[in-house]
C-alpha cells in the first residue's frame, strides 16, 4: 500500500520541463501536496488538476506547494499544463519509468501508470497524510485542505 503518514517522504529529482528539474528537498520549509495521477489528458485528471490549480491561493495560505506527478514525458506535461492553464509544476516520472511512484508504493504494474494518490508532506519532509483514490474517481480537494489545516502552526499535532 501507499506510504503512510509518519514516514519520511523519499526524496526524488525529476524533470518538469526539458531543461528544469525539481527535487522534493527544494521544498523543505514548505508543505507539499504531491499528487500522483495516471495520465495527462485522461478525463478524470483533466478535472482533478484544474481544481487544485484554482485553489493555489488557498494552498499558499496554508504554506503549501502542489506538485503533480505522472509517468508522462516533459513535452506531454508542457502541452497539458498549457492547455489546462495549470499553475503548479508537473513532474515527469518517465525514466526509469514510474521509479518515484514505485518508491511511494503507488505504481500499477499491469498498466504502467501510477495510482491516483495524494500525499501531504510537511515542512520537515514527513508524510502527514496519504490517500489512494479509486483510479476512476477524482478525489477532489477536501482531504488535502483538511490535512494542511492540521499542519498549521499552533495546531496540536
Amino acid at each position, binding site marked *: 500500500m501507499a506510504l503512510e503518514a509518519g514516514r519520511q517522504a523519499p526524496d526524488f529529482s525529476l524533470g518538469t520541463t526539458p531543461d528544469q528539474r525539481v527535487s522534493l528537498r527544494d521544498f523543505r520549509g514548505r508543505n507539499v501536496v504531491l499528487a500522483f495521477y495516471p495520465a495527462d489528458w485522461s478525463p478524470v485528471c483533466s478535472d482533478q488538476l484544474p481544481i487544485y490549480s484554482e485553489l493555489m491561493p488557498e494552498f499558499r495560505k496554508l504554506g503549501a506547494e502542489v506538485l503533480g506527478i505522472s509517468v508522462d514525458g516533459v513535452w506531454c506535461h508542457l502541452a497539458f499544463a498549457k492547455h489546462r492553464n495549470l499553475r503548479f509544476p508537473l513532474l515527469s516520472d518517465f525514466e526509469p519509468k514510474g521509479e518515484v511512484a514505485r518508491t511511494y508504493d503507488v505504481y500499477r504494474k499491469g498498466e504502467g501508470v501510477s495510482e491516483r494518490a495524494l500525499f501531504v508532506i510537511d515542512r520537515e519532509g514527513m508524510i502527514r497524510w496519504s490517500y489512494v483514490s479509486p483510479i476512476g474517481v477524482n478525489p*477532489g480537494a477536501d482531504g488535502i485542505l483538511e490535512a494542511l489545516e492540521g499542519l498549521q502552526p499552533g495546531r496540536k499535532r
Partner: protein
Amino acid sequence: MSKLRPPLSSQDHFQGSVDAPIQLVEYGDYECPFCGRAHLILKAVRAAIGDDLLFAFRNFPLSQVHPHALRAAHAAEAAGLQDRFWPMHDLLFENQQFLEDEHLFRYAGLVGCDLDQFAEDIDSEEVAEKVRSDFLSGARSGVNGTPTFFINGGRYDGSWEAEVLLSVLQDLRGVRELR
C-alpha cells in the same frame, strides 16, 4: 462520504420551500458544457417533482479552463443583488457560447436589472467574495468536477441523466410518504 459544508442557509440561492423533504444542491460553472446540459435536465426533473424539491445553486467556476466562467458567475450574483438571480442564471446557461461583457449586460437588461447598479455590483468586492466563498465551500465539500450535486447534504456520485436522477429523488420522496 463527502458532505455539503456549510449546509444551506439564507446566503444561498434556492428555489422551492425550505421545508421541502428533498434538497438538491448543484455546484456549477456557467461555461461548462456538462452544466449546460444538466441545466435542461434539472428543469425537467424539478417540474416533475414539484413542491417536494428545493433546488440551490452554488458557483464553482473553473476559471483556468473556462475563461468566461468567473465573470459570468459575478454577473449572476450581481443580478441576484437586484433579486434577479434565477432569470439571469437561466439566460447564462441558455447562452453559454455568448458570455462576453456585452452579452452579460444585455442579459441583465433583459431580466430587468438597473444597469448602472449592475455595472457597479458586477465589479464589487461583495460579489467576488460570494463567488469565492461558494468555490471554497465546494472544495471543502469534495466537489470534484462540474456539475457536482449534493442530495440532502451528501455528495451524489451517480448519473444525473434525467430518468436516473428523477428516480433517485422520487425514491426519497417515497420514504417520506411511507412514514
